[in-house]
């Protein structure tokens, strides 16, 4: 058992508000990364809901906006490392779309922690888990998203 896993029961007891984070994962890398995190039993806060797409290039800004409007406290865009795309260069295109998304989020005054991009390979289970842990901690500090509709959790 890893050190993180051993530490988890203590973290679980602290409880409190659990943010809801929507993570978009590509089928070939980051979704596999999340699977690897499971296989390695890398414990994570129960904050994240994963939406699987075939390629990170399919992560439409439309979906990211919708996640925020529906009440996401953070949205994560993840995919294969640049150069490793299963579809030649899908993640290069993801990078461009993300640049635009980031701009809209920044101009809207959405904190940068609430929208994050990360490249995670299928073998990087621990990286995936660490990422979720870090983001969750950051969001807990920030509190609920200002875009969250009333009465929704």
């Amino acid at each position, binding site marked *: 058992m890893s050190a993180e896993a051993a530490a988890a029961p203590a973290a679980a007891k602290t409880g409190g508000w659990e943010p809801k984070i929507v993570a978009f994962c590509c089928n070939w890398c980051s979704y596999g990364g999340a699977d690897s995190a*499971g296989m390695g039993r890398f414990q994570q806060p129960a904050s994240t809901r994963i939406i699987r797409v*075939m*390629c990170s290039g399919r*992560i439409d800004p439309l979906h990211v906006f919708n996640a925020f409007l529906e009440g996401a406290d953070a949205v994560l865009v993840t995919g294969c490392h640049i*150069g490793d795309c299963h579809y*030649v260069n899908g993640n290069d295109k993801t990078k461009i779309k993300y640049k635009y998304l980031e701009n809209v989020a920044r101009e809207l005054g959405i904190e940068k922690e609430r929208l994050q991009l990360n490249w995670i390979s299928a073998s990087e289970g621990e990286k995936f888990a660490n990422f979720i842990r870090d983001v969750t901690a950051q969001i807990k500090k920030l509190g609920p998203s200002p875009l969250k509709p009333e*009465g929704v959790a």
Partner: protein
Amino acid sequence: MSDIKGTENKGAVAKDNEEKRVGVFVCECGVNIGGVVNTKAVADYIGTLPGVKVTSVNKFTCSDSGQADIQQKIKEHNLNRVVVAACSPKTHEPTFRACIEQMGLNQYFLEFVNIRDHCSWIHMWEKEKATEKAKDLIRMGVERSKLLEPLQASEVPVTDKALVIGAGVAGMQSALDLADMGFQVYLVEKEPSIGGRMARFDKVFPTNDCSICILGPKMVEVARNKNIKIMSYSEVKAVEGYVGNFNVKVEHKPRYLDVAKCTGCAKCSEVCPVEVPYDFNEGFGTRKAIYVPFPQAVPLRAVLDKENCISCKACAKACQSGAINYDMQTSYTDINVGVIVGAVGFKTYDPEPRHDFGYGLYDNVITAMEFERLLNAAGPTGGHVVRPSDCKEPIRVGFVNCVGSRDKATNIYCSGVCCMVTIKNAQLLKEKRPETDHTIMYIDIRTPFRGYEESYNRSRALGVKFLRGRPVEVKEDPVTKNIKVRVEDTLANEIRNLEFDLIVLATGIVPHEGINQIQQLLKLSKAADGLLMEAHPKLKPVDTTIDGVFLAGVASGPKDIPYAVSQGSACAGRATILLKNKKAITEGITAVVNPEVCVGCQVCIPMCPFQAIKMDETPYLNTGIKKANVVKALCKGCGTCVTACPTGALEQSHFKNNQLLAQIKNVFKFQEVAA
């Protein structure tokens, strides 16, 4: 113009009026899930969702009894959507797709929810939160499942001919196997002769066989095979189409002589007055402007190097068969094939630009490949290893391993074969001239396969010295032209100053310049190391992401000869599945255009790395607008075009916007009233 959203909305999904009857099957995966998630509570909650007709909890849903339960409930409740909440879809999606297909449901009516890898395994000590999360995940899946649409994988016919690009040992093997299975094979080689790199090796490890002696017969076999059409001195210039139906344009460079008339007698070479460095011998020695590539070349025909030709026409006079034709033009052949095997090879790392270990600065620093030609009886020195500065036979030879490999400054990967090459080379010289003294400077010695370690042991027994350490300073003695090396012996933990007559660099394997062109022509992926990507590093090592295109040999990563040959055979085997069945099943998940909505703006076209989107040739109905169209056989279903499409006319089946949005929306729920 119209308001923001009128109801006569052409884009709206045609209302599917069929009542959605969802069955949800929650797997406990032994205690993997059941030990953390309260599966009963989850099933009870999910059972209250609209459309859910039945829920079921199984110890192992993937077991025969679990699958039988699904099939029985489909029948009992007349289900038309099935949600399985279990492990990762990567593990068992195919299992359950087959399971529901047996019951007459379209296999894409399955929604697979991952509550093990993404839930129970990562929230082992937060049982309540894990249970809540499982409810959310399954609710997301249930709502998505209601919007799933039936998909049919489509079939395309396969032309029963193959193209093999690259006639190295891997490509030849592939061509031979395919030909022996009865298929017509075009074997395209850019050099004037087939044979590839292996033809240039002197001996091959670990058996130290003569390389050309074992390769030569294979080359002849290729030439003799009726089903193989060799296109030497030719390159693939264009590839269009898709699996089963590739249209390929092959360019034939002019040899300036009639291949049918040339006998390979080399009389022309004898009279040619022009001498140029001989590339086959790694630049050692010379060849003529008209020459036969090497004695065992296939086809055994001369080739005229027009760049260096002085047009003295001596060769034309000398040629008894009148084969010389100075006016020959580049010609092209269009071929249609069903599959393509890419065995495009590699080159060795060039230490010249960086002057690694003084290469290019000091005469007596050479590469292993150059050393190989010097050792070769047919080489420039007739098999005498001499050092370039004074043509004297060296006594003290230093070998440096991992040049251009395992080095952040050049390539981080291990080239795999260089340890053995060095060991073999030292052995060969030592055996020839026992008085020589060999020192191999290495980082690690890697001898993983049959006979390799034995070969290493033999070297040691012969007295070859192994020094673990990388030279930190390499200097030439200006008088003797000997090479002085300062190296840390990391085993003895001391700095040593050595002097060698000759230094041989074991240069690594790198992609050759043509690989980019091949990558673009075949629309393949390239990894960060610059080599081509296979479809799956473990399970599909010779497939690519492009259906009908396979990779053999070093183009997809460093390999030794047996590995490359196996891959050649493997490609032939994989390709035969398509060639023999005469049909290919294409991806069911593809992009689809709604022509009612498409405005023909064409922004999607460059988005597709597979060139699967074409514009219609004629305007759609009476709109006057030519719409985009997805060629299903080319589409790999990544969906990047769908993201770029500003109108939403492009959709990715099985990952449609409304399906993904249904998932997103159901991440959340109304907060319950505090009691």
